[in-house]
């Protein structure tokens, strides 16, 4: 490993030098987003109702009752901030997923960067060779106008090395290949002047560093004890959550882990039960590990649990629940998060009682927790000032 790094570094140009400074920021801040794809039913997870079909269970957090199928999470609920007053206008999956990732409604003229991309851009990543933003189990959303270098490094199935992470030839041959490639690139960029070529070369340099990185071992969970792996659950999602922890420990700033399958128009109750069996151990283990970390990157990690919307109190003819953006739940945990319950819905779970929280407010809270100002403006390619969130105001009660 060291030898490969040495060999390759002799070929690396100025770009390597540029990124060679080690991470020494004041705040070991990172974000793990647990993205619940499809729109999880708030009524059958974080906001069960007395008259509803889902039974509630007491938790370690005074006053918080959650669905009975989350026993392990109930045990660590004193480290959670459950937001029950989330409300949005977008009831269409694609549009709502966009809002959940960016805080903005889709607009054909601007591609907004996702939370992952902003965090990747704003927080300097340690020099591990790992990408700053990793998405496990889903395509996630790109970096919009920030450019693909801040977009997610997508790994479909967590647990082992990503496809193509290793060269297919020996170190000596790879070095020769990169040497030949370097002179081709020099020639072409003298002929045609465009930033595209420079940007592409920078990307190849990142890929080279990635291939040579010791930190690649983070992707391989077999290094963890059987007991640890069991705590997270023997599921793809559990493995992905454990991988997320390992990645953050090695300096990845933001990891999105996707759990798909929440679009329960049919057979809601059986399906949610299945989902919770996957979620419960994985999330509980992650929350525990983050809360117990005293030093290092993990100690500064914020966990966000969120899907695109909630589900209707009304149960449809197929024993399912339909889309319900008017009132739903999200959960925060980790560094700087004040445990508690934010907001409430009515007896049905149909409407927010009192002040509602927008998705932008929720994301603004996350940004604030990791030291990024959610109202800071940047210029889009069409020279429009765009704030990091769409008028998001951090939820005061969610912060310590």
């Amino acid at each position, binding site marked *: 490993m060291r030898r490969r790094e040495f060999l390759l570094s002799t070929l690396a140009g100025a770009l390597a030098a540029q990124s060679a400074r080690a991470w020494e920021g004041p705040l070991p801040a990172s974000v793990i987003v647990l993205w619940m794809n499809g729109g999880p039913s708030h009524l059958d997870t974080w906001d069960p109702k007395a008259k509803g079909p889902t039974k509630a269970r007491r938790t370690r957090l005074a006053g918080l009752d959650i669905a009975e199928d989350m026993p392990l999470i109930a045990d660590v609920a004193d480290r959670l901030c459950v937001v029950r007053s989330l409300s949005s*206008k*977008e*009831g*269409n999956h694609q*549009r709502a997923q966009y809002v959940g990732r960016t805080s903005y*409604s*889709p*607009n*054909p*003229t601007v*591609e907004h960067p996702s939370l992952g991309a902003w965090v990747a851009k704003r927080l300097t990543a340690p020099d591990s060779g790992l*990408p700053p933003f990793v998405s496990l189990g889903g395509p996630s959303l*790109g970096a919009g106008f920030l*450019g*693909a*270098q801040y*977009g997610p*490094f997508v790994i*479909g*199935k967590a647990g*082992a090395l*990503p*496809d*193509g*992470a*290793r*060269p*297919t*030839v*020996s170190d*000596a*041959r790879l070095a*020769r*290949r990169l040497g*030949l*490639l370097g*002179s*081709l*690139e020099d*020639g*072409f*960029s003298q*002929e*045609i*002047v*465009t930033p*595209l*070529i420079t*940007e*592409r*070369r920078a*990307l*190849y340099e*990142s*890929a080279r560093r*990635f*291939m040579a990185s010791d930190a690649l071992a983070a992707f391989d969970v077999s290094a963890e004890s059987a007991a640890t792996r069991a705590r997270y659950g023997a599921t793809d999602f559990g493995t992905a959550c454990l991988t997320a922890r390992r990645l953050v420990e090695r300096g990845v700033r933001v990891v999105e882990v996707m759990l798909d399958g929440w679009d329960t128009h049919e057979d809601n109750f059986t399906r949610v039960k299945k989902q919770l069996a996957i979620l419960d151990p994985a999330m509980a283990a992650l929350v525990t590990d983050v809360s117990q970390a005293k030093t290092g990157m993990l100690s500064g990690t914020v966990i966000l649990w969120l899907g695109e919307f909630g589900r209707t109190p009304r149960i449809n003819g197929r024993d399912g629940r*339909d*889309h319900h953006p008017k009132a739903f739940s999200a959960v925060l945990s980790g560094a700087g998060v004040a445990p508690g319950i934010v907001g409430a819905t009515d007896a049905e779970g149909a409407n927010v009682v009192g002040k509602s929280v927008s998705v932008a407010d929720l994301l603004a809270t996350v940004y604030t927790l990791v030291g990024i100002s959610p109202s800071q403006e940047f210029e889009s*390619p069409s020279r429009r000032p765009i704030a990091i969130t769409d008028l998001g105001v951090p939820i005061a009660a969610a912060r310590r």
Partner: protein
Amino acid sequence: MSTPFASRKKAGPQLAARVGRLSLWSPAVGIAAALAAVLGGCGAATAPQPVAHKPAPSAPAPPPFTAAALDTLLRREWESRGITPAPRADDATFLRRVHLDIVGVIPTADRVTAFLADKTPDKRARVVDELLASKDYADYWAARWEEVLVGGARPGDVDRLTFRAWLREAFARNAKWDELATTLVTATGRSSPGLLRTATLAEATEGLKVQGIAPAVNFAAKFRDTPQDFAGQTARIFLGTQIQCAQCHDHKTEKWTQAEFRSFSACFGRTQLTVVERGGGFGRIVDARDLPGPVPRFAKNSEVAPFVSTPPKALDGTSMDGETRAKLAKWMVTQPLFSRAFVNRAWGHFLGRGFVSPVDDMRPSNAAEAPAVLEALGEAFARSGYDIKALVRVITTSEVYQLSAQLGGPGTGPLWSRFRVTPLGPEELVRSVVRATALDATLSESGAGEVDDLHVRLTRLFAFVFDVDEEMDATRYEGSVSQALMMMNGRLIDRGTAGGATSLFAALKAAPSDEARVATLYLRTLGRPPRDAELAAGVAALSEGSRGARGARLATQPPKRLPKGGPDPLRGLPPPRAADAKTAAIEDLLWALLNASEFAFNH
């Protein structure tokens, strides 16, 4: 003719100054005029005709629109702004460019050699005709339009093979765009003959003959529950207009109102799409049927009902009651925006950036560059009877298309005055790697399957990682580390460059000298002979290889996720093995050429 555009007449005087330039629009004019300016703004301001492109019977027929006419218009724009265009691209660059743009793949080494040797003055125009007549043209345009029309569909929602086979057949016979668009928007019947996951494109083509199959229904198939999205996509793709934002709210000044969107989407709310067979085969079979009124299922669904319960109207307010979709299609294909949307998309494809960018967001406040050229080209396209090949011929034989991507001097660049470098998309990249490495010949010799299907499956594998937005022009390189890794270490490149695996290496081995080997590698990958310095460096690299660099190969694993709907596309190849030193050196040079920016960009 009084009713259809009644609202426009009110706006007449204000409109007169505004039509003709999509960019001149002030919010004070009001939504009706905005609609009119966008939908009808084609010169005839005071007495608009619903059928805007049919000249009045007495008017003399305008001269045919040629590449020269296009160049004159653009030159005028450049001169008025003091822009000096770049010099003309050389023959090899032109040949590669026109191949990538018309057939989606780089030229073969033989074609390059023959083209460079050809001394006839009209050889560039002839190569355009040759490409338009080839099977590759239909393949490539079918692939591109499949992406535009059903790109976001979930596997299983759409029978993509049948859809592609149908599109391929349409492009092969040069189906006119108004005919194609009408079929796509109005199709009824069953979407698929019911194919197995393992079906090939040849089988899908055969399946088109099954009675009662309407492959165009696949365009609508994913909108079974969302007529409003069917409406939004139709407006976006065929009229280049984004109306879907109005789904949820009225937009400030320039967008459509919610009421307008609802009347428009009501046109699609009478089409009932029923799943007649699910699972088992390649995907669902959907049956499309038009009802006299709103589909009851939609009307009962509180999320959808608002979009189907108002009387159906076109975007300019024309009533579409009756044979709704048929009427709507008839209205649509006579709009100036209909031809402009296609022309703009084609311009973006060939010139790297549309007159309006993104290509599907034409509206008054998103100014068109060189609007006069867009209009002229749009009118010409309509006048030609929406002849796609004729449009491609005009664009690709124009001087503006043939400009170099190199800097020609100060002030070059804007308004397509030098060729815009663009990255190859997954389709072009896969086809070009396969051609450069002779994987196609190798695989068909090994009996692994049809080359057609190889392209489809490999592209699917690539498309996920190379998820580029083809609707946007590339001002920056939208790459990712995953893409670089796929090109550096992925199986396609690994197998394509492996000495033992392809027929290319047999030919290279048999070549008389290292000079010949290097020349062949450059012709195959970059579509040009190596320059002197490159030749010398290449020969040095190959002979250095002979002196004993190790040819070891590390074990590669098959990808963890194979493309859905078929076996591993590369299964027919023998596994790569350790190569002798000379072969290893050739492999390394080929690898470098395939990873080079000159290969990865259309320039």
